[in-house]
């Protein structure tokens, strides 16, 4: 098994002694976040200078400020990323291998204590925690921007921000949240838990996984730097021709979103290969936890959809710098091309945001109902159905845009068909609840809330998929309420459910339950109080992304704003609980506090560095609650010879098949 082998001695045609250990440097000289920052600063300065040097008289196509030089900005960002990665030591081992020197990753001395979280570390558990903190920072930054938006909308005319600032804030909020949501579950939970759940000691591509995380801080900084460059006026969708016309802030949007696209391709690729190739013996497809199924389908969607996003962003950048004309109508381009590219990514993305949530709740429900998952195959089929159909619905975003009208009935049909596999998830949940022994823990409350919130999100989605109803609802606050119900009401509720559920495993500490319940109830009530009225606001004629609306809608808007502030308060309760529980109180978690069957709960909390002492042999499915005849989920200390026997059989059967 090639899982743990390192070459005993690297081949060394030139370089130093292959057997020699890497030299130990002082800790401040080892690559880490501080060297990465230095690299990024030098990189940006270098790239910016290079851009200005190459094209001193460049004038932006869109006629921004006369002295704006998009090429300098874009090159600056590109070199910033490069410098950041060099400083982080991403390329160190590549260079060492080229020179025939021993690589450094095995050097565990560099990876002790808190310092490892600030380094390019190849342990999937470290990357998972890095992702968790990173995504929480993304989420709360985006949340603050949302509070700013709602403050402006307290009044039907503008009063706090200028229209320019308002649009900047709206665009930043949308883009930041969308970038974050693509990896908010796959990043922390997927990377951390999938190897534990499938009985593996590692992921398939630890370098890609670590790289996928370390691109996200870059994307975060670049996106926020847009504020310094005048922002971007297009919202998170970045429609051409407005994106061509916009000032330098638009470059930050395109680079940041494209960078996040690269990051999620890498993350998805790693997860898919890990799940397919690194399952422990006995972890058949029919025993795979639902969360792993969700990660698999999400990974496929990421790998297949995100390249289109990267391509679209790249084309925006070349339109703005290299004078191409993919999207510039004035020069023979087509804004429809952008809309199609964007939504060809954008609609699968919507399900990239939904499936992990389904996965988490399907994982939680059997544990807290104390019953097997009802219709395991239906649940997996539902996820695959959603994933496949999601590539055939993107034109429902363009029903009013003047696309070929012939296609409308077709896209209406495909969009509505998605509610069938989504309905499977409800069937599975409701079947599992049937005559259960519900334990209303904090994670379970969040799981139940997902089904209630997503119900409204899904039903409003049916209205949007229907062309006549969409004629009124499109581009209004109705759409906005719809996708906040599915994304925040679905994904974020599942995220918090998962966090309360798995944090004892991940950090070995338990979150305070009373505060957790207060967090849940305030969040659930404030969330619904914020977004439910927005359905009405949209139907009453308020378009999205406006700071000026009809005076008669002020009462509703004020209600929504105040509820949004309460929602922000609820998040503060969470932050307090999270920080206090993990840093100050540190109430130690038992190995299996929820009495769950999942493989990840069979190891200590937090899991040992190698996950499993031996590769376990999986004996039964993870959801056999209440079945007195069920075998334990896995044999953690399989007799010698079992693994090699299983591998030999597998190799033999593969050999004959081939």
């Amino acid at each position, binding site marked *: 098994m090639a899982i743990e082998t390192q070459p005993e001695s690297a081949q060394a045609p030139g370089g130093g002694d292959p057997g020699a250990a890497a030299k130990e440097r002082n800790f401040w000289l080892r690559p880490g976040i501080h060297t990465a920052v230095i690299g990024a600063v030098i990189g940006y300065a270098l790239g910016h200078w290079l851009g200005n040097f190459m094209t001193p008289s460049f004038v932006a196509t869109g006629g921004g400020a006369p002295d704006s030089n998009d090429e300098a900005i874009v090159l600056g960002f590109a070199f910033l990323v490069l410098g950041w990665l060099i400083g982080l030591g991403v390329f160190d081992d590549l260079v060492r291998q080229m020179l025939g020197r021993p690589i450094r990753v095995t050097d565990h001395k560099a990876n002790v204590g808190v310092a490892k979280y600030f380094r390019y570390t190849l342990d999937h558990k470290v990357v998972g925690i890095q992702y968790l903190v990173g995504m929480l920072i993304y989420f709360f930054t985006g949340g603050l921007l949302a509070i700013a938006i709602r403050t402006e909308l307290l009044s039907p005319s503008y009063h706090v921000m200028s229209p320019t600032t308002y649009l900047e804030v709206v665009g930043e909020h949308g883009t930041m949240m969308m970038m974050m949501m693509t990896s908010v579950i796959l990043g922390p939970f997927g990377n951390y838990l999938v190897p534990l759940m499938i009985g593996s000691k590692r992921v398939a591509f630890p370098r890609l996984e670590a790289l996928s995380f370390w691109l996200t801080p870059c994307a975060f900084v670049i996106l926020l730097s847009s504020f310094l460059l005048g922002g971007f006026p297009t919202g998170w969708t970045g429609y051409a021709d407005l994106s061509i016309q916009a000032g330098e802030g638009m470059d930050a949007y395109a680079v940041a979103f494209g960078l996040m696209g690269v990051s999620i391709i890498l993350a998805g690729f790693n997860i898919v290969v890990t799940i397919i190739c690194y399952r422990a013996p006995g972890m058949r497809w029919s025993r795979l936890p639902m969360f792993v199924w969700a990660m698999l389908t999400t990974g496929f969607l990421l790998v297949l959809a995100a390249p289109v996003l990267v391509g679209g962003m790249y084309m925006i950048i070349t339109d703005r710098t290299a004078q191409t004309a993919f999207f510039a109508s004035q020069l023979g381009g087509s804004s429809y091309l952008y809309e199609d590219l964007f939504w060809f990514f954008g609609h699968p993305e919507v399900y990239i945001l939904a499936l992990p949530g389904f996965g988490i709740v399907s994982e939680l429900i059997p544990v807290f109902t104390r019953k097997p998952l009802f219709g395991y195959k239906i649940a997996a089929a539902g996820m695959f159905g959603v994933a496949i159909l999601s590539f055939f619905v993107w034109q429902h975003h363009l029903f009013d845009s003047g696309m070929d009208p012939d296609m409308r009935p077709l896209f209406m049909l495909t969009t509505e068909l998605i509610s*069938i596999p989504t309905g499977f998830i409800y069937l599975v949940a409701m079947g599992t609840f049937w005559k259960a022994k519900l334990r209303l823990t904090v994670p379970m409350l969040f799981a139940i809330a997902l089904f209630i919130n997503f119900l409204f999100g899904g039903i409003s989605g049916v209205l949007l998929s229907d062309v006549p109803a969409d004629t009124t609802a499109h581009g209004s606050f109705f759409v906005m309420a719809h996708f906040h119900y599915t994304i925040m009401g679905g994904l974020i509720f599942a995220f918090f459910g998962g966090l309360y559920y798995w944090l004892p495993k991940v950090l070995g500490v338990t979150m305070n339950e009373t505060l957790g319940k207060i967090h849940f109830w305030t969040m659930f009530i404030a969330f619904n109080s914020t977004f439910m009225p927005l359905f009405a606001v949209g139907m009453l004629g308020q378009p999205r992304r406006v700071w000026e609306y009809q005076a008669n809608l002020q009462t509703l808007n004020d209600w929504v704003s105040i509820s949004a502030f309460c929602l922000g308060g609820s998040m503060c309760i969470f932050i307090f609980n999270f920080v206090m529980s993990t840093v100050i109180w540190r109430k130690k978690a038992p190995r299996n506090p929820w009495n769950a069957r999942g493989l990840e709960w069979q190891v200590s909390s937090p899991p040992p560095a190698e996950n499993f002492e031996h590769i376990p042999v999986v004996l039964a499915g993870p959801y056999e609650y209440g079945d007195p005849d069920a075998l334990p989920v896995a044999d953690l200390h399989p007799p010698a010879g079992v693994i090699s026997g299983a591998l030999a059989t597998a190799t033999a059967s593969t050999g004959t098949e081939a």
Partner: protein
Amino acid sequence: MAADATTTQNAGHRQGNRDGLWLLILWMVLSVIGCLLVALVLGPHLPPGAQSSSAASQQTDITVLATIATPVVVGVLLYFGWALAFWRQQPGDETDAAPIHGNTRVQVTWIIGTAAIVLSLAVYGTIELISPAGAGAGEGPQPIWKPAGTVTTSVTSWAPNTKNILQVQVIGQQWAWTFRYPQFGGFETTQLVLPVGQPVQFNVTSLDVTHGFWAYTLGVKADANPGVNNVAYTTPEHAGQFQVRCAELCGIWHGSMYDTGDVLSVASFLTWTQTAKTQLADVTKLLPPYALTYDPTTIPAGKINVALGLTSAGGGYYNPADPEQP
């Protein structure tokens, strides 16, 4: 012992049936009440109202969808409410519940049920899309669903109650709407005025970036794309004012890109066109000949905007160095 277990199981089974029966009865009663409330009480108040043919059909459509959605919402909420009320862990009971891995009959019923609802919704939506001439949505340059009995025989003249459909060109620019009436000498105005009871063809285009023409209570929405003619149809059925807004983000003053339109009687509309034609004669001379799309670089936009009294126009599309800049 065995007998005991059987009795308990039977009791449990009966208990299960009773739960199911109660849920079914409650669901049906609440669904009927809910559907009646949605269809009869809420329905007539649902947007976008009934000011035009497309608005009325959208209102019907939304009502039907909301009515069909009611039993689904009621069912799911009722089920989870029931579970929370009756299927809780009893204090001190640490045992697991009886395992059920699946139930073919329930699963098949569910799949057939959801598929039937979804397919019938798609069929109904298609009918509601095709029969009222594209449901007021922009159909692109080659519309395929038109108001019954109308053809475009002339874009230079129009008379009421003929097959010749009234043409109104909607031009979006940062950040104002203007409207051009080719059948009345091609004047361009900032007022959108329509006759009651006459089918209208909106030809929506843009001079700079993508806008979204949204005549809210007329139930019309069509994106205005530069260099593209996007056609939408409706027939206003009641006189009165309506809101026009921009539904696609188009830059910083997107929020203030709104107007009020007017549906007048046919006679008043004809009078208005004559007045406007005379009043705007000077502007009309500056305009390029009527076309379905315009190349903004050849339009003396600044002069036109000044003549029309537009002060908001003049976004980045027009080169800041352009002397035509207002």
